């Protein structure tokens, strides 16, 4: 069994599912011969042909509309938005149709589709290639949002996303596409779509994150440990629906919570977690909840982008503040 990267986890999941379910098709810009601009679909067109791995015209409105149409007629399309910053033209079809089709037809038609997109900053990419816009989708009923942060979770969660009977937004943290390798058995085993992953047990403070900042969050936990502070680390991974129970349990134990994400703070997904803690865990909290996030400005072009993304230091400081407060 070979060790693979996060993006190879994506490719491996797509290939597995296409082999085992003829209704799965992949479509997007440059997903065919080119294998995707990040190589996520590499080799798939060779294996499954140009009618199952489809290079579309350059139009995200088209990709979304086609995807909805195909999904309603019995296929399981996995569409790629080349970058999350180009997902906006897909919104009308996703919001008005995909997430409602089952509901508005009382189950007659359904939209078992996935929209994948490389997500987030930190790779010195050009303008419009570094957004983290999961919050755009998080208020929308009928949708699932998934952001894996390891090769194994990329594999298992993408399988689950494709098999899920409803639309799933699957954001891939491109900064850690090739951060490290791990063994991921190609066994077709999906992971649950509604359970957070506890990556590290701890007693003193709960660190909650998802996507590429899991890296800094784990590093912060190391740094805290060096100072004798025991941090629990949770990878939310399935952003919507949110498994609040796992987070709540942890905070009930630690009494402190730091939420880390790279998207802007204001009405980010972190707000929901903090809000639920305020509602349901107020008496468990020994200190105010902290959010360590991107600033409420656009992620700058790359000369400054690392000043925008939350660094380890900010997470450590926030964790210490929660300890000092109580």
């Amino acid at each position, binding site marked *: 069994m070979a060790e693979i990267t996060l993006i190879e986890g994506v490719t491996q999941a797509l290939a597995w599912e296409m082999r085992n379910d003829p209704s799965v*098709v992949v479509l997007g810009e440059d997903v065919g011969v080119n294998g995707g601009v990040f190589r996520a679909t590499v080799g798939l067109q060779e294996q499954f042909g140009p*009618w*199952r791995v*489809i290079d*579309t*015209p350059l*139009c995200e*409105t*088209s990709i*979304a*509309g*086609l*995807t*909805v*149409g*195909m*999904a*309603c*007629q*019995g*296929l399981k*399309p996995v569409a790629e938005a080349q970058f999350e910053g180009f997902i906006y033209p897909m919104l*009308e*079809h996703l919001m*008005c*149709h995909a997430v409602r*089709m*089952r*509901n*508005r*037809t*009382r*189950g*007659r*038609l*359904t939209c*078992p589709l996935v929209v994948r997109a490389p997500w987030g900053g930190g790779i010195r990419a050009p303008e419009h290639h570094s957004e983290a816009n999961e919050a755009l989708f998080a208020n929308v*009923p*009928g949708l699932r949002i998934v952001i894996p942060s390891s090769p194994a979770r990329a594999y298992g969660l993408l399988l689950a996303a494709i098999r*899920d*009977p*409803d639309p799933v937004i699957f954001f891939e943290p491109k900064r850690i596409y090739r951060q490290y390798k791990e063994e991921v058995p190609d066994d077709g085993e999906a992971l649950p*779509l*509604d359970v957070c992953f506890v990556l590290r047990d701890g007693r003193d403070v709960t660190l909650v994150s998802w996507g590429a900042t899991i890296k800094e969050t784990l590093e912060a936990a190391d740094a805290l440990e060096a100072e004798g502070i025991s941090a629990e680390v949770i990878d939310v991974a399935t952003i919507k*629906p*949110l*498994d*609040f*129970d796992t987070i709540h349990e942890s905070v009930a134990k630690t009494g402190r919570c730091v939420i880390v994400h790279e998207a802007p703070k204001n009405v980010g997904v972190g707000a929901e977690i903090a809000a639920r803690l305020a509602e349901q865990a107020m008496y468990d909290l020994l200190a105010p909840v902290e959010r360590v996030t991107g600033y409420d400005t656009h992620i700058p072009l790359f000369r400054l982008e690392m000043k925008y993304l939350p660094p380890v230091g900010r997470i450590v400081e926030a964790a210490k503040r929660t300890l000092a407060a109580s």
Partner: protein
Amino acid sequence: MTTAATFEIEYRQYLDPDGHPIGKQLPAIARDLDHLVELYQLMSFTRVFDTKSIALQRTGKLGTYASCLGHEAAHAAIGSAMRPEDVLAPAYREYAAQFYRGVKPRDVLMYWGGDERGNDFSGPRHDFAWSVPIATQCLHAAGSALAFRIRGEQRVAVSVCGDGGSSKADFYAALNCGGAFELPLVLVVVNNQWAISVPRSRQTGARTLAQKGIAGGLHCLQVDGNDLIACREAMDQALERARSGGGASVIEMVTYRLHDHTTADDARRYRDDAEVKAAWQREPIGRLRAYLTRLGAWSDAREEAWKAQCEERVNEEVDAYLSTRAQPVEAMFDHLYGDVPLEIAQQRALAVAREVKHG
């Protein structure tokens, strides 16, 4: 100077406003009188239904309703030319097309009556739901057609939008896909001259809406949308072409919206009565009736009997609609996800509990 490409947009009409044939060469469908009578009946049934629906809205028994007055030929041609296994992606007023395919009038009433079950209609279970977001259905049809190509099925996807809809990005995107993938797709533009208050002339600088198909290398045709025979021939040919691998088409059916945009609209604010009066002279039902009557296939007596039948059937449908009780509160949650997330189950339980307590 070199010419890179030339194009021609054809216009077809077979019946004049009084139902007289134009020219000598009528298509075969013009001689299939039984079928034409069936379609005439569909059209006139639809008009009875339409009149009734407007009345229901006016008396508070229906929500906003989009009338199809004047569009009956276009819609009947679309619905009747398709095979059951084809897919229709309608906009929101193509009732005649849907009735032919098996949707029940009560489904239509349910939808405009504010009940999701209207979209869970009888008949063509794979057909798309009504699409209020303008022209989005064009891409759903394109996606369906792509699915058919992928699976090698001999099916065609048809979508219908309006003159206004043909301005929307989605319409263009659909025709671009239709050409790029050589899809079994028919995009019908029912040009009724108005998009709510905006006249056709303000939508585009194009002389015809049919010519938009040139942008995607599609087959393009403009027909008299009040002439059932022209509409039907156009549909037959486009469907046949699509089914046999000949690619996608745009058909513009030129007609007129004789009613307000919907019952929430008042067209007197923005258009002349004279224009509407003139359009009544060209309306499709009288025209077909005259043609059939002249050929002895229809009569005043049959008309009277049929009208009575229509009234009766429509009344039955209205009764069925009116006697359907609202869904219970939990219906809000029951079709949201296939795999119900915990938080939805919890909210459902809360809503039910509240309902029990407060009603």
